[in-house]
């Protein structure tokens, strides 16, 4: 067996876009990418979304999403898979190379039991008999520390949690004993506390089976934990390639340095002023009176300051936002705005009250009407709240565009013509247009790439400095929290488990959950993962 499993020689990937009602046109996705991978080695592919990471990863299965065209050479186990027949290609897929996708939830067929899907490829390629395959699957379930390894295979995808599914999918990839696994952001969709387990499981699995892997992610800290070497991609071109150590400690390229030094925004915590702009008094809320999602939440936000609401999915932090905005009237408790109680239901609030309290969403592109131009989107609040129209309106819109560092040229564009970051900025401008005294930011950066996210955060901070607007900043990303918050509310299962000024909240002693949360945030240093896992073992062992 050769000492190179995979060799890619100046890979080029082109695609065709078909804009509505226009002639299709070709665009280049990836160019001049070359890499070699020895058996059992793990290479991290890192870059922003659109950098072509996944595309490169999938090219090792000679798979182009949406009819992408691959050119260049892809040598696997000593043959160029560009030239093999469809039959041979099918034989390669699921036998020599397997794939673990970002969202396992979507990647499992909802109407087939997990076990049948896990062993499908193995049996299909006659690697093992059905019964052997099932045995191996069960072993893998165990190895990936899934609960009830014996029986979990008989469940349906929707009966298993996201983190578990991700591990089942890893098992599915490992089952046919492939030579190479492509991990495509396997933990991105997970909460930090879950991510760490999956990460650990994957790492051990790789180490034990000695399979080679391409590990694709945008999170440098994560990739640093699992891989031996790192390839940095940007706009479909190679930026830098090297050992993990070198990349994180001595990055050569400017772009790489930027990646490494993300999350470093200086922000001094401000002391709480006496009268809060918003005060939540033991809010309790539930959907249709059934599942209670918020219990006795009490918190306050001071003018010109930021309260970060932290928690994992399902912790009730978004519900809190819905309560404040009046979309979900609470069962008990009240919301005071400027010491005046806000009507619980949206319908009862005055236009003025609505104006002073604006909201920014996580998904910028569904937060804007795709059929309206930037001018309309930003202009609407102006004419609604202040009756500004015509040329005056346009002038204000341009001002706002400048404020969000975008400029006049964007004024007549449609959302579809904006990048992710720009969309989010327009949303910000829209809320600014109302001259609000407080803005609720619901996961505004989590859909964005680190660098872009930083840009947005900086913008928000600047605006806060200029306009003195307060933020209720909902997020699951503690790095962000540290970056911008003055006070922090940690939520868990609908309750506030920890609340106070940033400095207090982030300094020990911690309650268990906060501890878990903080310790789960990947850190950009080698061996961090092992360390954490080690500690937890010891704790659970009772030292």
């Amino acid at each position: 067996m050769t000492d190179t499993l995979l060799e890619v020689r100046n890979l080029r990937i082109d695609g065709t876009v078909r804009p509505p009602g226009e002639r299709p046109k070709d665009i280049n996705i990836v160019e001049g990418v070359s890499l070699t991978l020895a058996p059992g080695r793990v290479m991290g592919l890192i870059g922003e979304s659109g950098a072509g990471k996944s595309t490169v990863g999938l090219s090792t299965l000679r798979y182009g999403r949406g009819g992408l065209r691959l050119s260049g050479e892809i040598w696997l186990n000593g043959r160029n898979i560009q030239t093999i027949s469809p039959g041979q290609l099918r034989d390669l897929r699921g036998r020599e190379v397997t794939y673990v996708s970002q969202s396992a939830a979507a990647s499992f067929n909802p109407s087939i039991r997990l076990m049948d899907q896990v062993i499908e490829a193995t049996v299909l390629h006659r690697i093992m008999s059905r019964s052997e395959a099932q045995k191996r699957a069960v072993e893998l379930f165990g190895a990936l520390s899934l609960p009830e390894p014996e029986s979990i295979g008989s469940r349906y995808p929707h009966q298993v949690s996201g983190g578990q599914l991700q591990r089942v999918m890893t098992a599915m990839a490992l089952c046919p004993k492939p030579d190479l696994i492509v991990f495509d952001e396997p933990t991105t969709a997970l909460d930090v506390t879950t991510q760490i387990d999956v990460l650990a499981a994957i790492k051990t699995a790789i180490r034990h089976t000695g399979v080679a892997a391409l590990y694709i992610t945008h999170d440098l800290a994560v990739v640093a934990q699992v891989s031996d070497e790192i390839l940095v991609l940007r706009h479909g071109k190679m930026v830098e390639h090297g050992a993990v150590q070198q990349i994180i400690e001595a990055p050569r390229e400017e772009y790489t340095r930027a990646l490494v030094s993300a999350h470093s925004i200086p922000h001094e915590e401000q002391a709480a002023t006496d009268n809060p702009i918003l005060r939540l008094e033991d809010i309790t809320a539930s959907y249709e009176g059934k599942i209670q999602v918020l219990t006795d939440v009490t918190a306050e936000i001071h003018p010109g300051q930021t309260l970060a609401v932290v928690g994992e999915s399902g912790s009730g932090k978004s519900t809190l936002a819905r309560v404040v905005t009046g979309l979900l009237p609470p069962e008990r408790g009240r919301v005071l705005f400027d010491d005046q109680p806000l009507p619980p239901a949206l319908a009862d609030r005055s236009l003025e009250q609505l104006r002073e309290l604006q909201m920014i969403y996580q998904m910028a592109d569904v937060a804007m009407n795709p059929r309206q131009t930037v001018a309309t989107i930003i202009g609407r609040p102006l004419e609604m709240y202040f009756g500004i129209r015509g040329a005056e309106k346009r002038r204000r819109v341009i001002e706002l565009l400048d404020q969000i560092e975008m400029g006049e040229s964007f004024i007549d564009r449609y959302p579809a013509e904006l990048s992710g970051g720009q969309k989010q900025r327009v949303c910000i401008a829209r809320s600014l247009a109302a001259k609000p005294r407080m803005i609720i930011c619901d996961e505004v950066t989590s859909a964005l790439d680190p660098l872009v996210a930083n840009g947005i955060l900086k913008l928000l901070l600047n605006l806060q400095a200029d306009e003195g607007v307060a933020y209720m900043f909902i997020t699951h990303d503690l790095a962000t929290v540290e970056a911008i918050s003055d006070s922090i509310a940690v939520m868990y299962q609908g309750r506030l488990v920890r609340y106070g000024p940033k400095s207090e909240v982030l300094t020990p002693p911690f309650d268990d959950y906060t501890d878990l949360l903080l310790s789960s945030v990947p850190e950009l240093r080698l061996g961090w993962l092992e360390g954490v896992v080690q500690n937890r073992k010891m704790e659970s062992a009772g030292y």
Partner: protein
Amino acid sequence: MTLRRIPISALIGLILTGVAIFVAAFAPFLAPYSPAETVGDVWEPASDQFWLGTDNLGRDLLSRMIYGARITIFIAAAATALSFCVGAVAGFAAAVAGGLTDQAMSRSVDLLMSIPSLIFALVVLSVLPSTVLILILVMAVLDFTRVYRLARAVAVDVNVMDYVEAARLRGERLTWIVFREILPNALSTLVAELGLRFIFMVLFLSSLSFLGLGVQPPESDWGGMVKENKDGIIFGIPAALIPAAAISVLAISVNLVADWILRRTSDLKGGRS
């Protein structure tokens, strides 16, 4: 958008539809004879005097085709338009209002739909005086249920979008939400549906006329002309095939256009995701 960008199939569709509409609009100037007057012998073959031959009463088929286009398109279009305005507005309203209103409206539409439309039409038309107006009304009533369902479905999808919520938080009125937020995003789907509904109307009308409940003689839509001349079919006389073919061609061309619009909208979705 320039013609170059339109796919060939859609282009054909557009052209044919355009021709049909043009003919309908300018019937009196185009028709060589009066559609009612007997100008030749029964079922004369096509000649340079009668380009399409004559019909079952020796009337010029071409002229009748031209006037038939007018009646067919007018009635179908009117009925479609009516059913669309009613159906779409009702559907949006139901979706946005939600709750009991929605339930009540949707259930009663279900009820209306649970009565087979052709039968319904037959019953109603066989007892009401068969005037064009009543014809249009009946067709519209029967059809708006389907439009309602579609409109509601689309509106419900759009209604959950963040930008609609944003509009609510902004304090927008219902009218703005319906007409400025939802309508523009539901429109393309509806327009495509419009085309299909129009076809169904044309075919439905022709079925009614065929059963003798549609347009009353001497006026006659294409379906009615098939009925008038069908006796000839089994003797290989083409007089009935021509209007039937015309119906098909019109339907197909509108279909092509509708398909194209549908595809564009789905592209747009694809473009955004």
